[in-house]
């Protein structure tokens, strides 16, 4: 029966042709095609991975940002508080210093006044003494013109001075 008897010629040609086809397709079709598909699969995989990674990083970044914000807020509050207290203390200090200074000035002024007063008193005493001597001199010139009077006066002073 023709149908069921394989012709050796066709077997040989089929085998040969299929081997050549296998080689040509393998080299020029399947290898580039499959490697291109593989490459694409890899690039898609990489893209998805890097997208996930970027997402993850974004989340981390967001968390970091929130944390930093909170920290900054706290810090700001702390700084404000500190500044407030610093201000208070400076004001307080300044006030104290001013008070001290004022007191010192008052003391100094008082001392000065005392000194001035003493000086003035001294001066006045000297002036008075000088005037007194002058007056006394003049009086003496007038009064001691006679020996009687001189004696009288010496007597008087001697009496006045208490030798005790």
């Amino acid at each position: 029966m023709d149908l069921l008897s394989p012709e050796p010629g066709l077997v040989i040609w089929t085998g040969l042709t299929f081997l050549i086809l296998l080689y040509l397709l393998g080299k020029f079709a399947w290898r580039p095609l499959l490697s291109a598909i593989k490459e694409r699969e890899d690039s898609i995989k990489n893209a998805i991975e890097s997208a996930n990674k970027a997402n993850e990083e974004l989340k981390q970044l967001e968390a970091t940002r929130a944390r930093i914000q909170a920290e900054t807020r706290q810090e700001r509050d702390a700084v404000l508080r500190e500044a407030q207290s610093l201000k208070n203390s400076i004001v307080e200090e300044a006030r104290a210093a001013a008070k001290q200074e004022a007191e010192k000035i008052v003391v100094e002024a008082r001392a000065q006044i005392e000194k001035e007063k003493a000086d003035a008193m001294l001066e006045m005493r000297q002036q008075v003494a000088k005037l007194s001597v002058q007056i006394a001199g003049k009086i003496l010139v007038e009064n001691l013109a006679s020996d009687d009077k001189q004696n009288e006066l010496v007597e008087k002073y001697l009496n006045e001075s208490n030798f005790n």
Partner: protein
Amino acid sequence: MVSKLKQIALVILMLLGLSCATHLRAENAEMLKAEEPEQLDMTELIFHHVLDSYQWDIVGWETESGEQKLSIPLPVIAYYDGHFICKLSSSFAEGKRIEEDGLVWYMGVPEGRVVEKLLLDTPSEKGIRPTLDISVTRNVASMWFSVIVILLIFVSAARAYRKSLVPHGAVGAVEAVVLFVKDIADEQIGEKSAKYVPYMLSLFFFIWINNIIGLIPVFPFSTNLSGNIAFTATLAIGTFILTNVNASKHYWVHNFTVPGVPFVMKFILVPIEIVTMFIRPFTLLVRLFANVTGGHIIILSLISMIFIIGSLLMSLPSILLTLIIFVLEIIFGALQAYIFTLLSALYIGLAVNEEH
């Protein structure tokens, strides 16, 4: 991917539906021409189409002087007892005989056969077949044509990836089918599949494209290569060789010792396992051959019914039935390529893997 496959299927269906119509016309013309003699030999007509031929008929017509044919002559190459012959088939036309070195070569129908074969007369014997007939027959020429088609499709598809890793249009369709076949190999063979994927892909498309070529009824298609037992046998032998050459130790131990059964059972099971090794490729070759040839014979027989019954009324049911079978054949064309590839991958997977 699914919608892409649908698109491909639709386009193929439309194309083949169209060619179905031409097929019917072509066959009708052939039948009408053959109707003139009283006795219509449908068997010969069908077998002429289903079997191989030394020349490739393009078109035939009837003239007053007889049947005329426009056909492409193909090389006839044969060897017998130290003598080579290499002639165009046209040199044997109209029963011409070629005498060389005491051998007479001619075309004739051997005993018990239906179609013409190259025969020769030696001084002592008459009408014998040459030792080796490696003529480039219609099937061989059609096979080479299919190789060109396959290379054109897939090499150009592969080239499209040079421009972009995401090609558009037809290349996407090609890729969908390629990945479909690659998945078959990957699923059945597993880790070691990379080595066999090129074979599986080539096998699938070689069978499928030839099935389609066989279904398109006009020149240069309409040959019945994938329904030829020599063709299917060669491919089955390929799978058989790949299966056994690359088989793991486990496969041979399993086949020849059948571990895990009582000793007496081994006398039954070892022969069964060994026979199975050969039956597997045999089922592959018979399945493809019978399906494709059967389809061709059914279509031709349904058309022939019009002429056997000789009534115009018969043409309507006949053509309708042919159309149904034709659509089925289109499906089977892809299905048989799929089954052949799937089972090849399965057998190889069973053999090369250590455990299954």
